[in-house]
């Protein structure tokens, strides 16, 4: 294992310390509680927007703390859900008396820990709404799985909902928009290589030079199918087709297209995927009116990508375009 680390057990803390030092104008890092909090939190009368999950997906979630997106993030150990204590500390820190929205990616650990945190916060008298993202079409949504995973849509949802919360909208409205965004988006990912969790010291699965995994999640877990490596155009087709079918996208509809890198894939390749995606959608007369291309929800140094399509309406587009100023996303101000 070759990594730029000091000690395996200090990876998350050392990284958080660096983040706090780099972005002191936007956020503060509380190393003791293991939370990242917007600098001027709690913003009075604004719904607090909180998310969290295992580390290893940077810039998600800490990189989205700032103005117009998240008020706080709770980073767990690498690929491990944070604990209720962190979530409770973060909830208290961002409670501006308008309630707090918990954004949870659908993984058993995250859901269980957030459930316990919400129970504790409600004992404190803090109003909590929870929204679980589950946009990964690679997982069959059935009684025989833990349900679809929360992946790329989470990033888009945090931005859009953060935009609405900044206007002072009430908790119920913010939660309703969050649920709408989740229902409007679908994703699918693939890997060219596995990744190495520092504490494990070895790659989480073996993939030979001429193979790829289709339908991976973001925790270094293997996907649904292992196939021979294909061209970027073929891979884009494999990812985009199930998304388009599942969303039942029709000619004339408008979407946000999000091509995400898994951490170890250069931007030059992500644009090749975007080119293919653009051709596929144009061919179906589905219009890409917003896009996002880059490493936004990663899986350590895994090479690969995911595609997310989000069906747009006026409300979603308005809050996507709203000003945002965070370490990883900034525009409009």
């Amino acid at each position: 294992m070759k990594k730029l680390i000091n000690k395996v057990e200090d990876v998350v803390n050392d990284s958080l310390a660096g983040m706090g030092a780099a972005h002191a104008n936007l956020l503060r890092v509380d190393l003791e509680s293991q939370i990242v909090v917007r600098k001027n939190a709690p913003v009075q009368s604004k719904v607090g927007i909180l998310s969290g999950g295992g580390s290893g997906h940077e810039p998600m979630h800490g990189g989205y703390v700032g103005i117009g997106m998240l008020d706080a993030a709770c980073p767990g150990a690498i690929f491990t859900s944070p604990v209720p204590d962190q979530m409770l500390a973060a909830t208290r820190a961002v409670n501006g008396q308008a309630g707090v929205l918990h954004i949870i990616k659908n993984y058993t650990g995250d859901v269980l820990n957030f459930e316990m945190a919400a129970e504790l916060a409600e004992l404190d008298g803090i109003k909590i709404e929870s929204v679980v993202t589950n946009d990964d079409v690679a997982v069959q949504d059935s009684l025989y799985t833990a349900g679809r995973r929360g992946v790329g849509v989470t990033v888009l949802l945090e931005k859009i909902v953060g935009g609405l919360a900044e206007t002072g909208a009430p908790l119920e409205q913010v939660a309703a928009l969050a649920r709408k965004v989740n229902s409007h988006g679908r994703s699918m990912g693939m890997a060219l290589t596995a990744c190495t969790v520092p504490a494990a010291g070895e790659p989480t699965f073996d993939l030979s030079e001429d193979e790829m995994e289709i339908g991976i999640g973001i925790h270094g877990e293997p996907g649904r199918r292992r196939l021979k490596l294909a061209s970027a155009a073929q891979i884009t087709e494999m990812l985009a087709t199930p998304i388009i079918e599942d969303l039942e996208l029709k000619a004339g509809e408008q979407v946000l297209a999000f091509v995400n890198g898994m951490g170890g894939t250069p931007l030059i390749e992500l644009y090749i995927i975007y080119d293919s995606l653009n051709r596929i959608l144009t061919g179906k007369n589905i219009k890409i009116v917003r896009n996002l291309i880059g490493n936004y929800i990663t899986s350590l140094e895994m090479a690969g990508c995911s595609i997310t399509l989000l069906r747009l309406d006026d409300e979603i587009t308005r809050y996507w375009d709203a000003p945002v100023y965070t370490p990883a996303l900034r525009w409009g101000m």
Partner: protein
Amino acid sequence: MTNQDIIRWLDRIADELRANTHYLTQLDSPIGDADHGTNMNRGFSAVHAKFPTMTAMDIATQLQTVGTTLVSTVGGASGPLYGTAFLRAGSAVASKQELTASDIVAMLEAFLGGITARGKAQVGEKTMVDALTPALHAARQELDQGASIADITAKAAAAAEEGMKATIPMLAIKGRASYLAERSIGHQDPGATSSWIMLRCLAEVCADQ
């Protein structure tokens, strides 16, 4: 079983989880996210660090302290699952100074009840429940036949081991392994394995009772 035996049990678990950190993480790599050993070791190291204040506590408070410590330190699904299990186990033996054979079975029942209440898993879904359910059945059967604590806990541990091995051919239906569908077959469940370790440690500590 006294509060000092509980400390001995927890101490054995902490030792075994430390020794098996890599093994549990290896089991978790092909069907999970390669963190079960690290997480459980972190949790029980934190429990171990609290021993100085725990030795004077009664049994229920000891078990509840384990529960809250695991919830606060483990993360993942295992934190809330084992955390709730120990919290419920503590409530089941409230105000007992010493645990009888039937108290131990009641404790195991509450332990499993905590896991199923939180995780909603049933037998056959490739989880901790697949080790703990046969263990509880075996313990109850022994208790009904008037067996000693040593025999009850030994039979429970043996049943947990069988249950753990039975997860190998199972298709995962809960947790992260379920994303793999049929590719989860052929791998032993890491959660069932850590549950077996806990029961094996209990049997070892109770061997002379």
